[in-house]
């Protein structure tokens, strides 16, 4: 009896928590942007708090999660990142099951900037009837300054997201490597994964516990 052909062709590279985190972040960023733009500040608040809880979860999951979720899997020294980027112009045959060195750098950058954005949001105010849950802990002048920073970081996020989308498009259209599909299904073509590689999955219940702890921490800090 032959093996399942799907199993032969595809191999799991992303666990469910990482994928859910990724798409939840996409949705929450859009919600945060639109709600702030349209003045729905309560929605903006809850969207930001949820984002913060998810980012804390991702930091912990980067230490104890599945193989490709861990920082040590995708954080590489600058020399290796530069070598990888130089190789992109040629026929770079290096394979990575999870994030490649450039993608890993992008992930860390996005997490750092989003974290900064979420934290500055806690101390911000809109000059009208709304202020972040921790804004009263600082002077009005400081809160106003942080609000300006919150606005500026948003522009940095836009640039990073643009870069991220352009990079994903580059892999899809130029290198023939679809990165979107694996982030939806968790599976990648075996041909795009190093020979003999397999994921070591962390228990989903652990992810749930970490997420609840992160949410609890945010709730305790802000509500």
């Amino acid at each position, binding site marked *: 009896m032959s093996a399942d052909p799907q199993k032969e062709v595809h191999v799991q590279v992303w666990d469910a928590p990482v994928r859910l985190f990724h798409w939840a972040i996409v949705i929450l960023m859009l919600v945060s942007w639109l709600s702030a733009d349209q003045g729905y500040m309560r929605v903006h608040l809850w969207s930001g708090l949820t984002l913060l809880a998810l980012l804390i979860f991702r930091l912990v999951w980067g230490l104890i999660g599945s193989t490709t979720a861990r920082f040590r899997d995708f954080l590489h020294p600058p020399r290796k990142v530069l070598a990888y980027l130089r190789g992109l112009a040629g026929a770079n045959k290096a394979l990575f099951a999870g994030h490649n060195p450039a993608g890993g750098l992008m992930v860390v950058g996005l997490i750092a900037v989003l974290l900064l954005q979420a934290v500055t949001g806690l101390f911000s105010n*809109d*000059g009208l*009837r709304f202020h972040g849950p921790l804004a009263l802990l600082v002077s009005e002048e400081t809160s*106003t300054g942080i609000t300006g920073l919150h606005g500026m970081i948003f522009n940095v996020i836009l640039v990073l997201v*643009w870069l991220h989308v352009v990079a994903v498009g580059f892999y899809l*259209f130029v290198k023939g490597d679809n990165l979107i599909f694996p982030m939806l299904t968790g599976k990648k073509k075996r041909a795009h994964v190093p020979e003999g590689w397999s994921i070591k999955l962390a228990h989903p219940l652990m992810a749930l516990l970490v997420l609840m702890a992160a949410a609890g921490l945010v709730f305790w800090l802000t509500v």
Partner: protein
Amino acid sequence: MSDRPRSALLYFACVTLVTAAGIATAMTFRPAFRHQVLDVLGLADVPQAAPGSFYTARVAPLFETRCNGCHGDKMDRGQLRLDSFALLMRGGKHGAVIAPGRVDGSELFRRITLPESDEQAMPPSGKPPLTKDDIIVIRLWIAAGASGALPVHAIKNAPKPVVEIEIPQSDPVQVHRQRAPLADVVRQLQVRFPGMLEYVSRDSADLEMNASLSGGTFGHAQLREFLPLQDRILRADLSGTAITDGAAPVLAAMTRLEVLRLANTKVAAATMQALAPLKSLRSVTVTGSAVPPAAVVALRQRGIVVYGSDDVR
């Protein structure tokens, strides 16, 4: 040429086109973004208001005190800034807020005339509102064309500007520090002579003394006890006390005296002579005393007002 570089070139050309189209779309539908891009490119139109214009003299100060906290350099709520003529005319996130010549078409005027309970009202509830006169000034300016060049006197029926006077706040710490060196002496004298010695105000270390209620029991010896405070006493009422010209050296030592009352005492010409060098002295009362009119001439020549029973000016 290999397939990959060619397709990479095509891909990045497409990315450039899509990005340019996105920026163009954002510039079309987001006026604030359009202005930011034009600023970066150095292509923004920056109209200036003339120094003597109605805008500079009457409109800008209203925005400064009522609006710029949220619409200024520190915070640009709604991406609208009102801290310069150029930025005001540029408008905010949704475009222009001033329609020159059209009061009804100006979003800014609509917002400042909404009831305070309205969510869109400006300034928002809890912030100091614009007065009726402020709103009239803005209305007249927009109706006259919202120009930065219109002279300040061009709008004849504009309400007169209100001059705000700032009352300085007292600093309790500073006052305490000033009083500290003589605080013990003051306290002791206040115990010894109840109701006779007070600070001239709550934010001053200077003093005033009133011995008039003590009558004949208050003489030279008692007055000398106040000598440690000679540089702090601004007003002294010694009317009806037992002092004579023998008190003249003590009074002359109170170099900051401004008001001195010596009614119904036995002081005479020698005391008036002793007071002559006091630079701060403004008035002396000698009603019912033995001071002859000739003795106060020198004081009057210095502009000091002298009140006397036979010689009130």
